[in-house]
């Protein structure tokens, strides 16, 4: 197996569910070159491709018992942050979430709709007009979060990259 192809495979094993553009960026390869090697790996049955909401997420085939959709969602930073907050609090009000994550209400709504479509969160109506967000499958979600969570150091390096690139060119 060529070195580049081995590197691509290793990168996907390290970060299952990484999307195509993220992989290209992570390895600083050309898109065409990456696509070629991915094609070979997919044909060989080593890597599986999962199309989700306009992106191609990549998984090692040997990874079993994971929900590709859940992992793909948790690879998106804001979505993962919302899920983490709700998981830690048990239930969270939308106002608390927008405040803790410094995101506008419309952004929260967008992500909540995605999470609801994937059956990860739901809204519970409390007394009066109060709404709380809860996880529908907390145990499973925690496991998935553990799988995607990166070391504190690589999270800092991610942010350093974003500092130099501007916020537009990283995931989300």
């Amino acid at each position, binding site marked *: 197996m060529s070195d580049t192809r081995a590197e691509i495979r290793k990168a996907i094993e390290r970060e299952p569910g990484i*999307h*195509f*553009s993220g992989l*290209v*960026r*992570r*390895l*600083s390869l050309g*898109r065409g070159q990456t*696509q070629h090697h*991915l*094609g070979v790996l997919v044909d060989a049955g080593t890597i599986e*491709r999962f*199309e989700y909401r*306009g*992106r*191609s997420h990549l998984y090692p085939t040997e990874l079993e018992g994971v929900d590709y959709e859940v992992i793909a969602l948790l690879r998106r930073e804001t979505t993962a942050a919302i899920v983490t907050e709700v998981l830690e609090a048990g239930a969270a009000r939308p106002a608390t979430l927008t405040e803790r994550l410094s995101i506008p209400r419309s952004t929260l709504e967008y992500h909540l709709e995605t999470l609801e479509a994937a059956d990860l969160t739901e809204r519970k109506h409390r007394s009066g007009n109060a709404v709380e967000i809860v996880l529908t499958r907390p145990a499973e979600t925690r496991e998935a979060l553990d799988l995607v969570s990166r070391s504190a*150091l*690589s999270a*800092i*390096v991610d942010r*350093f*990259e974003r500092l*130099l*690139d*501007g916020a*537009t*060119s990283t*995931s989300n």
Partner: protein
Amino acid sequence: MPTHPLWIAILLSGVGTAALLVVATLAYRRRRSRPYLFVVLAIGTLALRPIVGAGAALGHVPTEHHHTVEHLLDVGIILLLVGAILDMGPAGRTDQDTEEVGP
């Protein structure tokens, strides 16, 4: 023997720049682009300052020269950061195509 506050300052700046250098180097290893390299070199130069400072405090660097050396290191840092900025090129260019639909 130099005063304690000086050693505390040298220690803090040494540890701080070393940590920054680790983060910047890891980012450069991921990206391997020239602006990242310039930033790594700038932080590396910054990391030399506490070394020169410690050398001066211990008497290995002549006291009359160590300010000159440190200010020259500053000039190096400025040049490297200017290099990183210029290397970014005109607006709109990033060092990769940004998000689009995968293969």
